[in-house]
């Protein structure tokens, strides 16, 4: 059984919150649904919230990277938010540092990043 993950629209940002451990087909479906929704809504930003994900393996990691690339081609910027420390450590050790994907620690910071503010710089000021 494959589930569809809801893609929510807030202003010109699409929000996807991955809440469960996904099987591979659901991950592929999400990528297609998201691409279709970007074109449909003309959204300029995508926030993918992975706070609930206990692990990100190479398949999901690759999907996150390709989703960001696809979104960019469709004129939308992707920010990955809520990665757990253990997930970050594991991904880097796995050999996947998601170089092309912007990240933010929280949904709030991710939205601020897309809105043009630079929360990183603001924090350091």
């Amino acid at each position, binding site marked *: 059984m494959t589930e569809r993950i809801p893609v929510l629209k807030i202003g010109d940002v699409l929000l996807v919150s991955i809440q469960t451990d996904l099987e591979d087909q659901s991950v592929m479906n999400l990528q297609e649904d998201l691409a279709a929704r970007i074109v449909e809504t003309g959204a300029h930003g995508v926030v993918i919230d992975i706070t609930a994900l206990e692990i990100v393996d190479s398949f999901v990691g690759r999907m996150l990277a390709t989703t960001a690339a696809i979104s960019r081609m469709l004129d939308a910027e992707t920010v990955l938010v809520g990665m757990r420390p*253990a997930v970050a450590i*594991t991904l880097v050790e*796995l050999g996947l540092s998601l170089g092309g994907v912007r990240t933010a620690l929280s949904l709030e910071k991710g939205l601020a990043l897309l809105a043009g503010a630079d929360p990183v710089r603001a924090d350091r000021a």
Partner: protein
Amino acid sequence: MNGQSVTAEEEFSTLPITTNDDVVRARQLVRALAQQAKLSLVDQTKLITAASELARNTLVHGGGGVMRSGLVERGGRRGVTARFEDSGPGIPDLDLALTDGWTSGNGMGLGLSGARRLTDDFTLASKPGAGTTVSITKWVR
């Protein structure tokens, strides 16, 4: 028995891996074992991630197989072992298969090499035409 493990293999549970859902089940089973063994959170995450890579390999490259997993003990240390067995086409060149970036399919080639980096013990046995067995163990620090 080689004297290293005091846990009888008969106590290992067997999970068939024939669908994408079984890969999710493999992760859940290994997560439960890792929590039971009281691995640290980072070590749990590493072990579950490695198991996920290998379960997917078993499904995609091995044409399906089984995962045998359970708690193990060696020299007073607890650990979790998961062994993935398939009777698929096997791997012709093991050294090459363990190289980062080498892939037989459309993945990134990080599955085997990544699983080895993420675990403490890693053994790979394969013969062309005779299937592949990969075993991983993570020990409590």
